[in-house]
């Protein structure tokens, strides 16, 4: 390697490249090949320090696969060591001029005469600078309290160093997943590894990594906790905040891989502006990678491109641009051109991207480079006026953005003239982001319209990487939820003031948003999850009612000017919108219809309060009983259920006719296990689908085969590939992986001739004999007998009335106390 520290080759270099990662290396190789005088400055004593820091033996992937590599240095998927070796060799081959141990302190001067101040006191002069320093030097740190002496690290060099440890890896990105897999690769090390992921999906990770992680999880080699964050780290223990509440696990070491942010302070000190105020925002760049300070170019991760192939292409391109090659198109140009080709307006890709950024609100803060990457996953559509974009009940979970034109939502199934417009710049279809429900309404183009269609995973990725996009989506969906909830002819404009005060808050399971006796007057809207309302009677909290997502609470104190009359706490991890009470009061004063409605809602709740107050002496044991049963059901997942099968053990004779009916109604396989499950006070929750509000099974279905039907049922369609992800993700064990048995002889043939196995699920032997060995298993779960006249077979087939299906809000209402079926 031709390193000549301290020796100045030319008075002034044409190009100084700062950072020797994939982007810097590729740029230097291009410069060397073009015969430009250049210098590659590297802070550490080896090239590609970040890649060197990848764990030993790590397999490096070459994604996106459809993108061609354009660089003088080769790169293809392979082991870390092999790739690094190849790069070192080629760097030498191209006579790249490298200066190691050269940390940059300042950049002075201007284009044509920059002075780069190094930490060792030297100054290097260059006409242009390529900044390729990446973001790894600035990892996101854990924000929860960390006990002194607890081991928390942000990199993992050699997983082989750790033996017999309980290790928690935080972060569901590629780095976290690869670290976790590396730590469990050699079972001899006996590490017990847990991976924490903030969400249920892994939108930012490569598909192959997620697959490997799932496989490891299935083999029991590691534990994956979704929807979980760390809330405190101790020396030998970590406190976790999970969907269902707080839990503690043993933990000797935390490896935090929660992404990294641009080293903003340094970059800004160089006189470079950023796109936005967010910590994770990227620098403002021209399409030729030039920053706001003339002569300084930025490529690679710092430009918003974390993938190696992108970085290398950019390194090549930027040197070509600097060298005056203005005709060069980025390597992804042909792919993007194809995306825009069929649109009625014909303009270069560059203009399109700019146009999209200026039109669609969710894309506003993306750099042109981020836009390019994002567009690779998305599709453009053109619709003539009146054309249907999607129909009600169509499957689909992509999000659409209106780039030009206007679309209309059909509000009524019967009267097509009742419509609501969605204007240019806004989005629709965003409900698919939270649940896999089918489309809730038909949407047509109100005029000739251009839309961008963003697949669910790409949208999640966008929201994860661009805070502004997340904000835009949240605001739009919040506003829509409020409008829909309050109804009463409200318009978007009426809500302007309320929206300004609205803030989204995450609430942990068990945390109270309203405390009895407090003074607050704020209103809370439950966005996801659910809440329970409790009132303290004597010294005990008594369960009053259950609030599902989509309801609001807190209006009593506002309307009555009284203290809070009950405590509202989260049944499971939830998200609420907090609305300032004063802003809401102003809205109520302007909208008498809305006030009426709020008063009606309040009257119902007051009645309930009074009922409890009246009963508290005479019926305290009844109230107690009810309250404890309610708590039991909430613990058993009723908090997120939309429809659940319960069995009254005072009536159940154990005939299993429910299971038989289920099997006979669906391919001969029962989707419920009556006997298994938990019981409290003779109320049995069998193992059967609760049709969760945010179904865990949907989180990671490769063919996207799990949907929510029009009646709320969560079902699996025929595209199931039998991967078993849903079975693993279901916290209630209600999904089976089975081979579908053939049709059995009818009831009469069995009754009269003894043919076939009779009613109910055939025994395993009978199935195995008739199903070919290599038949793939498919996931089997309850679909609430959708499409079967008469409704759920389990309930219809119960001879004694023990089996009932209920929605939690119906079952967990105090009104049940007045009935004596309990």
């Amino acid at each position: 390697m031709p390193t000549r520290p301290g020796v100045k080759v030319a008075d002034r270099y044409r190009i100084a490249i700062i950072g020797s990662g994939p982007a810097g290396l590729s740029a230097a190789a291009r410069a060397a090949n073009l015969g430009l005088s250049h210098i590659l400055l590297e802070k550490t004593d080896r090239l590609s320090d970040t890649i060197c820091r990848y764990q030993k033996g790590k397999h490096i992937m070459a994604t996106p696969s459809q993108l061609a590599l354009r660089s003088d240095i080769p790169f293809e998927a392979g082991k870390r060591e092999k790739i690094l070796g190849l790069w070192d060799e080629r760097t030498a081959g191209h006579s790249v001029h490298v200066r190691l141990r050269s940390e940059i302190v300042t950049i002075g001067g201007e284009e044509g005469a920059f002075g780069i101040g190094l930490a060792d006191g030297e100054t290097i002069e260059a006409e242009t600078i390529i900044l390729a320093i990446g973001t790894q030097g600035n990892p996101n740190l854990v924000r929860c309290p960390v006990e002194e002496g607890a081991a928390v690290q942000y990199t993992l060099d050699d997983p082989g160093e750790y033996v017999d440890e309980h290790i928690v890896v935080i972060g569901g990105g590629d780095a976290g997943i690869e670290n976790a897999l590396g730590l469990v690769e050699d079972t001899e090390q006996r590490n017990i590894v847990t991976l924490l992921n903030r969400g249920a999906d892994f939108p930012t990770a490569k598909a192959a990594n997620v697959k490997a992680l799932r496989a490891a999880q299935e083999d029991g080699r590691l534990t994956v906790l979704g929807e979980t964050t760390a809330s405190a780290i101790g020396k030998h223990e970590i406190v976790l905040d999970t969907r269902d509440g707080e839990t503690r696990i043993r933990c000797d070491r935390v490896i935090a891989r929660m992404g990294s942010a641009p080293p903003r302070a340094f970059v800004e000190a160089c006189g470079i502006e950023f796109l936005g105020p967010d910590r994770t925002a990227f620098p403002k760049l021209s399409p030729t990678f030039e920053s706001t300070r003339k002569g300084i170019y930025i490529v690679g991760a710092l430009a918003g491109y974390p993938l190696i192939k992108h970085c290398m292409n950019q390194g090549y391109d930027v040197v070509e641009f600097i060298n005056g090659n203005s005709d060069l198109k980025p390597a992804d140009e042909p792919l993007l051109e194809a995306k825009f080709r069929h649109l009625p307006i014909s303009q270069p890709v560059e203009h399109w991207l700019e146009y999209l950024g200026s039109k669609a609100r969710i894309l506003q803060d993306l750099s042109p480079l981020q836009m390019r990457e994002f567009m690779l996953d998305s599709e453009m559509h053109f619709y003539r006026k009146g054309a249907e974009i999607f129909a009600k009940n169509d499957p689909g979970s992509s999000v659409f953005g209106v780039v030009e034109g206007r679309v209309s939502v059909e509000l009524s199934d019967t009267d097509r003239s009742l419509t609501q417009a969605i204007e240019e710049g806004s989005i629709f279809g965003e409900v698919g982001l939270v649940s896999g429900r089918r489309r809730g309404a038909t949407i047509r183009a109100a005029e000739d319209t251009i839309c961008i269609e963003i697949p669910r995973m790409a949208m999640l990725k966008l929201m994860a990487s661009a805070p502004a996009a997340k904000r835009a989506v949240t605001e739009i969906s919040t506003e829509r939820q409020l409008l829909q909830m309050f109804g009463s002819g409200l318009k978007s404009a009426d809500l302007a003031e309320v929206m300004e005060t609205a803030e989204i808050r995450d609430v942990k399971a068990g945390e109270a948003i309203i405390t009895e006796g407090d003074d607050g007057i704020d209103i809370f809207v439950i966005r996801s999850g659910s809440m329970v309302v409790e009132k303290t009677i004597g010294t005990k909290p008594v369960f009053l009612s259950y609030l599902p997502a989509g309801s609001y609470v807190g209006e009593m104190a506002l309307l009555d000017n009284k203290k809070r009359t009950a405590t509202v706490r989260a049944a499971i991890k939830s998200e609420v919108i907090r609305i300032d009470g004063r802003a809401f009061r102003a809205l109520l004063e302007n909208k008498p219809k809305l006030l009426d409605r709020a008063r009606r809602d309040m009257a119902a709740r007051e009645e309930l309060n009074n009922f409890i107050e009246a009963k508290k002496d005479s019926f305290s044991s009844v109230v107690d009983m009810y309250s404890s049963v309610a708590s039991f059901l909430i613990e058993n997942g009723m908090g997120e259920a939309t429809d659940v099968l319960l069995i009254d053990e005072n009536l159940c004779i154990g005939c299993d006719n429910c299971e038989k009916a289920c099997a006979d109604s669906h391919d001969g396989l029962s989707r419920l296990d009556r006997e298994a499950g938990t019981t409290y006070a003779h109320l049995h929750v069998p193992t059967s689908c609760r049709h969760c509000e945010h179904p865990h099974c949907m989180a990671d279905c490769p063919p996207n085969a799990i949907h929510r039907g029009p009646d709320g049922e969560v079902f699996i369609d025929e595209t199931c590939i039998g991967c078993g992800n849903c079975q693993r993700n279901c916290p209630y064990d209600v999904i089976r992986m089975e081979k579908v048995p053939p049709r059995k002889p009818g009831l009469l043939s069995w009754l009269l001739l003894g043919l076939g196995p009779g009613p109910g699920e055939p025994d395993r032997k009978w199935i195995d004999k008739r199903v070919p060995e290599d038949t793939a298993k498919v996931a089997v779960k309850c679909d609430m007998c959708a499409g079967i006249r008469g409704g759920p077979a389990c309930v219809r087939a119960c001879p004694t009335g023990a089996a009932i299906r209920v929605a939690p809000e119906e079952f967990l209402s105090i009104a049940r106390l007045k009935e004596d079926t309990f």
Partner: protein
Amino acid sequence: MALSDADFDNAGRPTRRSVRAGDTHQSLLRYRRMLWAKIAFVGSLVGIVSYLLIDVEPRHNGGGWYGYTLGTLSVLLILWLTMLGVRKRLMTPGRWSLKAWTSAHVYLGLALVVIATLHTGFQLGWNVHTLAWALMMIVVLSGIFGVLAYMILPRRLGSNRDETTEAQMLENVADLDRQLLDAAQPLESDIAVFVQKAMEEDAFHGGVGRRLTGRHGGSATMRALAEIRSRALSGTNAAEEIYDRLDGLLSRKRAALGRIRAHLRYKGLLQIWLFVHVPLTFALLAALSAHIVSVFFYW
């Protein structure tokens, strides 16, 4: 932007269908405020009053227009009541509920006693006609036993089960046997015999009588436990630890056997009456055919 309820943005929460067939929390006896009890009661009352008011010469005998009406009604009722067995096993779509059928089956079955007995005109004797009536009465009586069992036993079945499944209960016993085998290895042969016997005792020990009454007194596990305790007390053995462990294991086995036997007993009692109810129904149908044929051929 004002969107209606039918809109797409509903926080992911579905609207629910209204109450579905039979989907209310009511037992079969209380189904629709005992609708079928009322119908059965009114029907029986009409039968009794008309029996008293209508003057048949020389006396009520099952014949004549009135007797034939009661007879026909009884046959139709019996045939319909029999159909419950088919309804239960034939999972067709539609807005029916087995609970409603069972409710009607119970109350109309009780009404049948009145209607069919009035049909006899209380002329009973040793013939095929009375045989049909007697079989019917036994079927109904076994049914009444069944309803009582359904009312009383489920809560006991549930409490005894306490969230364990039948398979888990059996597995529990097998697991204890494995541990007993381990623990008994150091024992002298004279005492090991008792443990051996205890290990051989399974939940199904004894016949149907024992199964249903729950009397399993003097079981091998109990004897082994008594033997172990007497020896531990008399201080003949230094290996106290082994005895303690065996004592614990045998006590647990006794409890585990107790639970699964109670489970099987309740399940047995919930089903045993069907072994009378169903076969005798077929016998009744045969006797009924003979009764009808003989009446019309030899009148």
